């Protein structure tokens, strides 16, 4: 019995050591690269805290919006200018959103995930407020720099929240943070604030060619449809084959829909080992809507759920 146990332990150590040692090494993410990334997060958090403590969250968002709007529109091709303006505008005001995330997977051995996922709610990027309800029963509130998630009872039990329905996490910890706009956009659909105008604008600014696809209309609006594709975006390690965005802009200059299709290539070589395609379909409405979000009572928030590892 001891021998069996010893053999099992040896085998486990051997397999795990091989898996560990052959993790592809990326100098950009280790050593000084890792330090730089942590420094950026540290500096960003300090800035956010300072602004919030001074009651300056709105001012900060306003500044960010001004920076966004400074993306050169004058002299840009009309299609690029229209899309840039509409996205910049959405960054500076509130709206209702409806989002459907779907996944299509042809990668051998990759499990299918729950799809589609529907998210409805309101976002105010200027005041950093948000409320999102998901079709799987989860709910997220964004208040300033905090994100609160309400878990359905079954999940709360699994994650060991001690009977409390809410969890709290700093928003910065729920948002991916990558140097490249392509990588940011590729993963953003997974964040608690999935609409990321900054990343979209950075991608546009990187030289995307925006095409005018003609007239389009929706309930109570008419406008123009635009499309752009970025192939093999920088900073995605060959995993992302392309990001295609279709943007509808109404005659008032508001963004009305944004459909983003991200094609991941499992092997880094198109056509060799299947693809995984994520599509996020946003629709926007009720621009300028006023709403408030109240954090859940402290007594309902579980702060230490380390027992459950959410890997």
């Amino acid at each position, binding site marked *: 019995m001891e021998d069996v146990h010893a053999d099992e332990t040896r085998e486990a150590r051997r397999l*795990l050591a091989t898996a560990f040692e*052959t993790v592809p090494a990326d100098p950009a993410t280790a050593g000084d690269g890792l330090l730089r990334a942590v420094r950026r997060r540290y500096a960003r958090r300090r800035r956010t805290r300072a602004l919030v403590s001074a009651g300056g969250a709105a001012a900060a968002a306003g500044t960010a919006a001004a920076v966004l709007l400074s993306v050169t529109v004058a002299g840009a091709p009309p299609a690029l200018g229209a899309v840039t303006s509409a996205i910049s505008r959405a960054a500076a005001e509130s709206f209702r959103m409806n989002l459907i995330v779907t996944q299509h997977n042809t990668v051998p051995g990759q499990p299918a995930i729950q799809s589609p996922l529907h998210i409805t709610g309101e976002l105010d990027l200027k005041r950093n407020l948000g409320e999102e309800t998901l079709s799987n029963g989860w709910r997220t509130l964004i208040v300033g720099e905090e994100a609160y998630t309400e878990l359905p009872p079954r999940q709360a039990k699994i994650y060991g929240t001690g009977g409390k329905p809410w969890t709290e996490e700093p928003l910065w910890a729920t948002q991916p943070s990558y140097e490249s706009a392509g990588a940011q956009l590729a993963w953003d659909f997974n964040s608690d604030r999935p609409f990321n105008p900054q990343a979209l604008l950075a991608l546009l600014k990187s030289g995307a060619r925006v095409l005018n696809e003609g007239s389009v209309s929706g309930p109570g609006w008419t406008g123009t449809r635009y499309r752009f594709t970025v192939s093999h975006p920088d900073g995605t390690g060959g995993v992302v084959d392309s990001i295609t965005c279709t943007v509808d802009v109404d005659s008032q200059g508001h963004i009305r829909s944004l459909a983003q299709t991200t094609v991941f290539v499992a092997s880094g070589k198109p056509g060799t080992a299947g693809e995984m395609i994520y599509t996020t379909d946003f629709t926007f409405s009720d621009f300028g809507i006023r709403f408030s979000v109240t954090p859940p009572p402290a007594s309902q928030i579980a702060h230490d759920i380390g027992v459950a*590892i959410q890997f």
Partner: protein
Amino acid sequence: MRRGAEEFDERFTAFVRSRGEHHLRMATLLTGNPDAAEDLVQASLLKLYRAWSRIDTSGEPDAYLRRIIVNTRRSWWRARWRQETPVPEVPEAAAGEDAAERHAVGALVRQALARLPRQQRAVLVLRYCEDLPEAEVAFLLGCSAGAVKTHAHRGLAALRESLGDLDSFAVNETSGPASG
């Protein structure tokens, strides 16, 4: 000395430089996704740094960081979806045949690990990769030592079944990722 906004304590800097890659590798095994691992380790290091002045780091900062990594609750949404996204496959061109085969097996083991229930995966990584005693793994995961044994046994059985016949694969059994 006053700490500048973007300067870190020298010992923290030295720690990240010397041990960051180790924890990135461990996090890759835990999450099954290099991008998620990178994000997890960055967030955990930030938490560690915020506590750096209050903890005794003359001994073993690794233990603190490991605990933070394990306890860091990731956004459910992101974690649920991101762990399913594809990652680059095995590098084709290694130094030689042995190295290529070793990398191929390593990738297979990581894929098989990624398919395990997360508690089994965590137990295998912490017990056999980080080489932690059963009691410490139980403490980290908030379960009993008996549960650790069970997860380890079942996890390894599932790994073995998933990997099939790897008998032709030979590795140096003395090598390993032990910290230090």
